[in-house]
């Protein structure tokens, strides 16, 4: 059973790490604060859940403490899946209340004027 679990772990870790790195790259490359919310908020929670799922398959390697580790992994995933969108929404709301203007293309704003 453990070889199948190892293959699943490699798959979930690979997808999760891809999401984590591309999300960080998006935060660096996006032109505006509001567009940066998109890679930071979404990819983060999904990457964490995928990597935690990958680690969940490794718990059977630890006979005595594997069950407790699995419960803690599920707790971490559930907590972050609930709180990460809340934090992202709170940051966006605070920026909006502080009067931060959304970014537009240069000629687009001229056309609207």
């Amino acid at each position, binding site marked *: 059973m453990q070889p199948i679990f190892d293959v699943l772990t490699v798959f979930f870790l690979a997808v999760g790490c891809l999401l*984590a790195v591309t999300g960080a790259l998006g935060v*660096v490359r996006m032109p505006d*604060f509001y567009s940066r919310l998109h890679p*930071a908020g979404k990819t983060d929670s999904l990457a964490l859940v995928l990597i935690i799922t990958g680690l969940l398959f490794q718990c059977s390697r630890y006979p005595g403490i594997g069950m407790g580790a699995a419960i803690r992994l599920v707790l971490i995933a559930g907590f972050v899946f609930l*709180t990460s969108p*809340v*934090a*992202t929404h709170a940051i966006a709301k605070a920026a909006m209340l502080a009067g931060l203007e959304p970014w537009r293309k240069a000629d687009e704003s001229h056309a609207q004027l």
Partner: protein
Amino acid sequence: MMPGVLLGAGLAILVGIFLLLTRAFAGPTPFDRILATNAMGTKTVIFVALLGFISGRPEFLDTALAYAIINFVSTIAILKFIEFRRIG
């Protein structure tokens, strides 16, 4: 083979943390810095969990859980301070 895979995943997470750190330093507005720091905290939770499995001691997961809670509470506290200019 498995520790190598976990180590590679940890290195990828570290690359992500470094990229977010550049945004936290460069970010024009304070909200960019808060956003990058929050995402860094989430990636740190992943890294601590991976570290527990790399070193073969899953007890590190307690630390990861505590870090997730502290990350959320500190982000909300900073935003509340910016919005209302007081914590209490």
